[in-house]
């Protein structure tokens, strides 16, 4: 990964198609070399993922009820079919796409459905009241959107053109929940909108729009952001007028904290921006400035906003009976930790624990539910899968040809990793608890839709990277 040939080839815009330096024979050799190995690997992994998901649902039913109930399997056949359809479509429009991300997303999504189904059984929800049924419907919608994305975005560089539209869309999505009429307040944060019977967390989609905007903006602005400025203590600091963008994002994040009372979302966007900024400019000073800004903002928020201060209290002093018993106190956090402890090393087994004791066990706390029933071993496996998922995205960033695509891939995969960190870190008391969803696992349509769209974009990005790379490898004189 260290000696990517990118710099040797010149500007990525110059070679959008594998035509310039290739000879006829090398082109043929490429086609012959890897006809469908990627796709066959993906198909194999996909079948394993689907099988594991079905097994998880069966275990849940056997563990919690003692007998199998076919209806959930019949329903799940629809998303299973769709994910296979996605695979077939990849064979046509993205032959060289990464073979790992779809199986990982499929497995996590299936495991999430199994655990949500398990909680439905515990709570006695059936039919349309069951979270699992709604989750399956959302999965269908999410995979259809991923397919649509893959089909519509045939060349990811198109997205760069729409960066300012993406910014606008992102900000609007972020602000939607505070609009009167469709905004909805739940116990934790104002991050929901409700249209008809559907409630939706638009912030989840905003992270994609913002990643596109950041990537597009930073690719054009990187030179002025990285090269100009004065050096203090061996570190180059930017000019005051170049501070504009970071201040805007900072204000946006703080706005999220104040208006929507959502620390996690703010941390997510700001972290995303900082990392993309750093990768684009290579200036550590940006990180320093950004972290100081965020720390100052968080400190200010915790001293001015009682709800933020409560979060910190719950985190630092969770087991104090006073904090535990207080309204909005650490009850949920502590009960989640009890659930995890009860799971121990090997877990209680699917369907055999009591994850339903924790409030919001199927959404914010799905990871505690999984940890209780699958144990530390299961959690490690899940974390490892997320890590691989992020790594696949970073691979695109390393091997990519155009900086926009690289930045976008890094941003999209990093945002998944950061979200995992914020959620699981919150549940396990590593950091203060915030109300974010665990990607692919947690009940919630917006989260599923957003993360499957990320899958679709990563497929597209990885496909272009590989097509270009083979040409480079085969055609370059090195």
């Amino acid at each position, binding site marked *: *990964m*260290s000696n*990517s040939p990118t710099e040797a080839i010149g500007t990525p815009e110059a070679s959008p198609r594998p035509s310039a330096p290739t000879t006829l024979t090398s082109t043929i050799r490429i086609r012959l070399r890897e006809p469908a190995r990627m796709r066959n690997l993906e198909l194999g992994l996909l079948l394993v993922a689907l099988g594991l998901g079905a097994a998880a649902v069966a275990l849940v039913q*056997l563990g919690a009820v003692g007998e199998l109930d076919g209806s959930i399997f019949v329903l799940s056949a629809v998303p299973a079919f769709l994910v296979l359809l996605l695979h077939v479509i990849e064979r046509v429009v993205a032959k060289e796409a990464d073979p790992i991300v779809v199986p990982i997303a499929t497995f996590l999504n299936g495991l999430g459905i199994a655990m949500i189904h398990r909680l439905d059984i515990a709570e006695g929800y059936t039919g349309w009241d069951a979270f699992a049924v709604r989750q399956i419907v959302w999965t269908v919608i999410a995979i259809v959107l991923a397919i649509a994305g893959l089909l519509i975005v045939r060349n990811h560089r198109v997205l760069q053109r729409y960066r300012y539209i993406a910014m606008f869309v992102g900000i609007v999505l972020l602000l939607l929940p505070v609009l009167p009429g469709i905004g909805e307040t739940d116990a934790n944060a104002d991050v929901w909108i409700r249209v008809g019977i559907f409630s939706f967390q638009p912030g989840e989609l905003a992270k994609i729009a913002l990643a596109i905007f950041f990537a597009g903006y930073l690719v054009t602005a990187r030179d002025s952001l990285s090269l100009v400025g004065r050096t203090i203590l061996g570190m180059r600091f930017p000019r005051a007028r170049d501070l504009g963008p970071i201040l805007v994002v900072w204000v946006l994040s703080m706005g999220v904290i104040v208006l929507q009372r959502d620390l996690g979302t703010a941390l997510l966007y700001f972290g995303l921006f900082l*990392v993309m900024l*750093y*990768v*684009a400019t*290579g200036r550590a000073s940006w990180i320093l400035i950004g972290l100081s800004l965020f720390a100052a903002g968080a400190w200010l928020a915790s001293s001015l906003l009682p709800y933020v201060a409560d979060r910190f209290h719950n985190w630092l002093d969770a*087991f104090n009976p006073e904090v*535990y018993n207080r309204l909005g106190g650490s009850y949920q956090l*502590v*009960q989640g*930790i*009890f*659930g*995890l*402890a*009860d*799971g*121990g*090393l*090997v*877990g*209680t*087994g699917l369907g055999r*624990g*009591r994850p339903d*004791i924790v409030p919001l066990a199927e959404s914010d706390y799905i990871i505690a539910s999984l*940890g209780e029933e699958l*144990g*530390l071993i299961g*959690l*490690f496996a899940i*974390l490892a899968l*997320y*890590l691989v998922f*992020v*790594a696949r995205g*970073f691979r695109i*960033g*390393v091997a990519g040809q155009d*900086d926009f695509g*690289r930045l976008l891939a*890094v941003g999209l995969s*990093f945002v998944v*990793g*950061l979200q*995992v*960190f914020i959620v*699981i*870190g919150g549940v*396990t*008391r*590593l950091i203060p608890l915030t109300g974010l969803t665990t990607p692919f696992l947690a009940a919630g349509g917006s989260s599923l839709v957003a993360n499957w769209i990320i899958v679709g974009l990563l497929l597209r990005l990885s496909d272009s990277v590989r097509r270009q790379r083979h040409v480079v490898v085969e055609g370059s004189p090195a």
Partner: protein
Amino acid sequence: MNKELRRVSVLVLAMFLALFSSTTVIQVVQQQSLQADSRNVRTLYASFSAERGPIIAGDTTIAMSEASGDEYKYLRVYPEGELYAPVTGYFTLNGENTGIEGSLNDYLSGRANEQFLDQLNAILTGQHPKGAAVEVTVDPVVQQAAWDALGDLKGAIVAIEPSSGRILAMVSKPSYDPNLLAGHSQSEVLANYDALLSDADAPLINRSIRGDLNPPGSTFKLVMTSAALMTGEYTPDSTVPNPSSLQLPGTETTISNQSRGTCGSGSEVTIATALRLSCNIPFAELGAELGYDVIHDQARAFGFEDPELGVPMKVQPSVFPEPESEAQLMLQSFGQGDNRAQPLQMAMVSAAIANDGELMRPNLVERITAPDLSVLQDFEPTVYSQPITSDVAETMTQLMVSNVAAGAASGARIEGVDVAGKTGTAENGDDDPFTLWFTGFAPATDPQVAVAVVLEDGAGRGQSGSGNGIAAPIAKKVMEAVLNR
């Protein structure tokens, strides 16, 4: 850009390593302390949903789990109800379990460390884990005899096998039905619990090992005599002055013997006679001569003031507190003042004397057996202490035998068997009913049972009952039940 990417990769890796660590800390490192937190209802639910092992006394099942068909899967049932309540305790929702149910909860629910492999096996084979069975040392015949002998009186009985420390009977009255507290309807259980709790007779308290405790009265003279003989400066024939009343130093209080006269005839009285006739004044004088430390050390060697003593449920320590004055010491010396004891303690005193001065650790648990019948824990008699030498034990036995044969404990005589015993009739206040005691063992030559009986509230007779009149015959029935096995 690649250099930055590498650094960000390291950052992501560090974030995930932090998550690996935080989950490990919760699920492995802190697991036990988190599970022990009283706010963790999972531990409770888990112990309810597992098929809890039974508790067995001899061939009688005294606690078992029955499939209940509700969310807790099993209902705890106590077929013998009140009779064994002090032994079993109860297993309840949202509350602390008592008795064997409480102190051996880990084994009964299958969560003890020794059962880890079984748990793992149960998970792998998809079976519900089962708890271990606990066999108790209680002999159903002796338990029933003790229960019947106590009748409707308020009090408690403990019978111990002196050579091993096995507890053969543990009865406390009034008792309660543990089934009332083991139900799955939270409101019913709570109502039952409140009713039992507000009962003036405190049926939930196991009087054989805890409660408000009673002054041991004259039974404490066994400890006093042992202490005196153990100094080597006294023999049973050593004498003390024998007045008919004695004014305690520094007070207006005078004390007298039970007989209201002197202790036998003569101006001096031997310790042997004083013990046989259970006189107070000679022991008050003896206490002043021995001093607090000697008596206190002797009492502790018998098990007084041991906060760790458990059978395995915790025993409330009997106390011989440091007196404020010599007058108080003299009162405590014949089992009054702030001197307090429970029946198990007094049975231990008799058991030590019966077992050549070697006190075996009292214990209720005979065996713990896993569902596959492998033995997880087998009862091994262990020595608790050696409070007196075997010579002193022999002397004490002779004194106690003559106490029954020709002294103040005649109510415990058994035809054809030498019984050793000591009665007690303790005062609680000027107008309060007495506490009646008996402790002893039989047969004196080959002791098979040591017993202690305590009767609270004067056994319903105010200040007119005596240990010899009411407690001794009850103890006699318990000892007979053992001897007739």
